[in-house]
């Protein structure tokens, strides 16, 4: 860029229509147009990744109709979640009273078994074999060849 005017002045008496652009030797100035060191440039790039400038989309402006649509969708979802939560709570309540009834009966029928059932289990953890459900089944769906490990003390 800098060398272009000089080029033109040098060829003043030549017809400008046949002037071709000659690529000049790269200089430090046009290699690094911002004029900062590469280390500095890296910091600027990293900071600009976190900054919202130039990256934020346009604000979402919903028309009245769209807003009502959006609110309806959200309300429907909330009602659906409330319904699921209600079912869950009801089931947990039933389970709680079932355990209570079982324990009360056990206390009455066999205090020894009741005592055994009440042994503190705090600190009990899930076993390592517990598998979390996944999107797709594994290649070996079930491990059949299980042999009981005998622990010798």
């Amino acid at each position, binding site marked *: 860029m800098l060398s272009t005017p000089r080029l033109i002045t040098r060829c003043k008496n030549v017809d400008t229509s046949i002037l071709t652009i000659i690529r000049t030797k790269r200089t430090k100035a046009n290699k690094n147009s911002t004029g900062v060191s590469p280390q500095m440039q890296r910091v600027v*790039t990293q900071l600009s990744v976190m900054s919202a400038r130039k990256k*934020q*989309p346009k604000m979402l402006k919903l028309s009245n109709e769209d807003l009502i649509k959006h609110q309806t969708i959200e309300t429907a979802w909330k009602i659906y979640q409330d319904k699921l939560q209600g079912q869950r709570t009801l089931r947990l309540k039933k389970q709680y009273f*079932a355990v209570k009834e079982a324990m009360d009966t056990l206390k009455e029928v066999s205090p020894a*078994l009741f005592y055994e059932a009440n042994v503190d289990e705090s600190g009990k953890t899930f076993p390592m074999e*517990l598998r979390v459900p996944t*999107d797709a089944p*594994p290649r070996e769906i079930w491990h059949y060849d299980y042999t009981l490990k005998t622990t010798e003390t």
Partner: protein
Amino acid sequence: MTTKAPSTIRAALVLARTPIVVPKLTKFESQYIKYKSELERRLMWTFPAYYYFKKGTMSEYKFQSAQKKPISKQPGVWYPEGIPDIKHCRERSTKQEVIIPKETPKSDDTSVSRPVVKNPAVTRADESNDLTSLERQLRNTLYLLVKSGSKGEWKFPSFDVGSNQPLHEVAESGIREIGGNKLNTWTVSRKPVKVLNDGKDGSLEFLIKSRIFSGEFVPKNKDTEFKWLTKEEIKDFVNKDYYDNTEYLLDK
């Protein structure tokens, strides 16, 4: 309070195989998730490609040429869908679609970047409707139901409590007596989750919850039949009273 004469106490085991595959979303759930994700994409910041691809490299070129270029604003042009507002090569009024350049996969590709092929959730046991298989109904919880003899009824396996051995130990050792030692189970709790009153002989049946992780149930006695059933299917096999009393203990 009159203490009853100690009637026969039985310990039953509710042995469950937990789901292997996540449950299917309902139509409403998947529609809502799609709506929310589209909304989120619309409001997402522009992808800073200049941070991930070094200027002038081959990977930058590949990435940039895979992207769809937005329509730019030109003077004297009428834009029916609004005047383009482009920053960092993104139309600000719509969501940004970041396209990852992909090479056509080879059939013998063994690299880690090869496309993922998911295994089907419907297995051979589902197709042949093999109710004794543990590999069926991967999206649901399965429960072990047994029937002893041709006259017996389908129910959770139950065992007599003789001495003062804890209920969960009776249930866990009992299942191994009828179904072999090849069972890797885990008792959820020592406490019974439910007591069932048998009207006929006045025996009390305490249900203990347990989970199976590996191994299989192989009945030692030929008369013993067994099935791995979902909650829905259990309804068809047990009598109504039994189902109503245990229904809320079972997962879908």
